[in-house]
């Protein structure tokens, strides 16, 4: 890690910390705005773990018995544990950067588990939990953050597109893919295909996201737009992007938009299943706003204390996505302490594997720089590679390096 890493200026930089102190009214307004999802929030499990019936969505989770719920619980615990491990490894200098998903486990696991194998997912850069549900080995994902690779899994096998860092780009790519599903006649019945596309609250301002809405609407693409509104785009609250709740954006395009409690794995599963069904049957697209919270920093190079209050975090801790499932399972007798302990132990092993793998990752060889620039070789580039490799060889021979 270079010392100039972009969030570590030399200390004593003056008054910005003060600027980060909002007024008491701002505190209250902020807490209200970010922690209440509003009347139209779809919730199936309260923060206290109470199951709330939903005439509209219960049927989408009718098959989720205690066993299935325990699996969702397990998924979330594993994903969180891996996230924390990676975060720690970044602190230890093993990763260049980490993008934590802490707090967004329900949104990611719930929506990811709603997908059928034939469905396709287009992530942004924080969707480690979705990756996991698509069967991507988290070890294949860590190279991005260790900076040994730009991407690492088999996209076709997992139907999980590479991470996309440029905000909004993947939304159009997903729209194109979904159009392809339609053109191939894979839409129309229960066995149909659909695509899901992930992006953040900040991303909704980008032209590409709008164009994705336009294209998907005009081509009736089987595409679920899954917006994780985690209340923040780095230091900017959602109010910097929109006057209205984001799910209402869909109103202007003529397809449904819905807000789901993004910390409620059951609701996320149900609503996403519904949306995918709509798409599968030719009634796409659909916009889902999963109302959630980014409990950690934007990335490991970020310092949220400069722009938000810890009160806000405390407020959201009460809505923790994992705790409510644990409470529900414990209270309903679905799982005892043994189960929770087992899951925790499994999670520790899971994290340990990730750690072992990370510490032992080989450095990529220099010639990798020149690989796969094109599918068909370029003589000019080949010459550049040869020249550089022989230059490097020169050092090796001379023993200078």
């Amino acid at each position, binding site marked *: 890690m270079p010392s100039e890493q972009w969030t570590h200026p030399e200390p004593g930089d003056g008054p910005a910390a003060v600027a980060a102190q909002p007024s008491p009214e701002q505190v209250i307004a902020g807490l209200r705005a970010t922690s209440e999802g509003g009347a139209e929030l779809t919730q199936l499990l309260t923060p206290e773990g109470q199951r709330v019936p939903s005439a509209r969505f219960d049927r989408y989770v009718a098959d989720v018995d205690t066993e299935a719920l325990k699996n969702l619980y397990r998924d979330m615990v594993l994903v969180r544990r891996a996230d924390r491990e990676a975060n720690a490894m970044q602190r230890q200098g093993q990763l260049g950067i980490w993008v934590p998903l802490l707090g967004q486990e329900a949104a990611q696991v719930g929506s990811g588990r709603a997908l059928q194998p034939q469905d396709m997912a287009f992530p942004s850069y924080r969707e480690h939990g979705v990756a996991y549900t698509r069967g991507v080995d988290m070890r294949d994902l860590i190279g991005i953050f260790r900076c040994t690779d730009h991407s690492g899994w088999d996209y076709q096998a997992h139907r999980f597109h*590479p991470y996309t860092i440029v905000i909004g780009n993947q939304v159009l790519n997903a729209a194109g893919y979904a159009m392809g599903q339609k053109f191939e006649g894979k839409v129309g019945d229960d066995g149909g295909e659909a695509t899901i596309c992930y992006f953040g609250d900040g991303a909704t301002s980008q032209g590409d996201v709008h164009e994705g809405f336009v294209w998907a609407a005009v081509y009736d693409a089987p595409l679920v737009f899954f917006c994780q509104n985690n209340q923040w785009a780095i230091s900017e609250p959602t109010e910097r992007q929109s006057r209205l709740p984001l799910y209402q954006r869909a109103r202007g395009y003529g397809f449904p938009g819905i807000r789901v409690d993004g910390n409620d794995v059951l609701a996320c599963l149900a609503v996403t299943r519904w949306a995918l069904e709509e798409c599968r049957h030719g009634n796409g697209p659909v916009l889902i706003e999963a109302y959630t919270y980014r409990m950690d920093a934007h990335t490991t190079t970020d310092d949220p204390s400069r722009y938000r209050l810890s009160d806000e975090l405390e407020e959201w801790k009460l809505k923790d996505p994992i705790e409510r499932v644990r409470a529900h399972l414990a209270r309903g007798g679905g799982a005892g302490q043994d189960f929770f302990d087992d899951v925790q132990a499994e999670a520790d092993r899971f994290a340990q594997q990730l750690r072992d793998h990370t510490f032992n990752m080989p450095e990529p060889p220099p010639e990798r720089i020149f690989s796969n620039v094109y599918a068909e070789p370029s003589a000019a580039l080949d010459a550049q590679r040869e020249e550089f490799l022989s230059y490097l060889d020169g050092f090796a021979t001379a023993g200078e390096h």
Partner: protein
Amino acid sequence: MDLQKLTIGKAINLGLRRAMEADPKVLIMGEDVGKLGGVFRITDGLQKDFGEQRVLDTPLAESGIIGTAVGLAVRGFRPVCEIQFEGFIFPGFDQISSQLAKLHYRTQGKIKMPVVIRVPFGGGIGAVEHHSESPESLFAHIAGLKVVSVSNAVDAYWGIQEAIRSDDPILFFEPKKLYHSGALKMEVDTETAPERVFSSAVVRSGSTATVVAYGPSVKVALDAAAAAADEGKSLEVIDLRTLSPLDLGPVFESVRKTGRLIAVSEAPSESSLTSEIAARVQQECFYSLESPVLRVTGFDTPYPPSKLEEHYLPDLDRVLHAVDRSLSW
């Protein structure tokens, strides 16, 4: 052998048709490419014959066109996007440079990007702003893209098919001024494929000096060579055809013979393709050059009102003037 006398525009049209017949995964997408056949009529008749799911009149947004083409390519399609005029490619710049150019590299080759972006480019049609530019150098600078251009009907017919067959993303620059030029109609053997279109080709041999050009400037170079011949100067003319990666072997060879090089392009010269040609030639042919590589290009200004374009665009006189300067250096 099926010989057809074709304009460049018609040759591309026919090449697109062949490519669509050959592979059902080939799609045409863009603004007005369907019923209208494009504002230049290059996709004329294709929607009628291949249907609306293969020839798509898209919503009006270039990032959308290219961004969805990327997704369609991930799905296994081979999209051919039309950008209506080169001046309107910029809203799509981000998808081109961030996704189209990089997905193959990013995924270590696991995702192929067989997307062709057709761009009518260049001036000389008496148009309003944004309709006459030559932005190809910008794309030549972006690694991961291939950039090509054609100057005649044979290359146009075969080149578009070669581009569509390629698994790499290709920016295909078409000399709009020449699309419908009857004078440039050529007999095209539509059955016997050439080995490879996108390599540089000597299109006229000579010994006094070399002129390298591409797209619409090839005609200017050839006209200049014809005029120079009358004055007893023998110009060798090279059509680059591939702009990135460049294929400069034939240029080096020629310069080693003539000792002089003039690079012609309608684009501004600053940090451009012609800069690159000069930079590489001065390095590779350092001891062969009898005078510096000279460039005849658009000026380093925005494209002027088109009443002034005859001054802005390289023409026969400016090329000959550069040849003279080179000879008298």
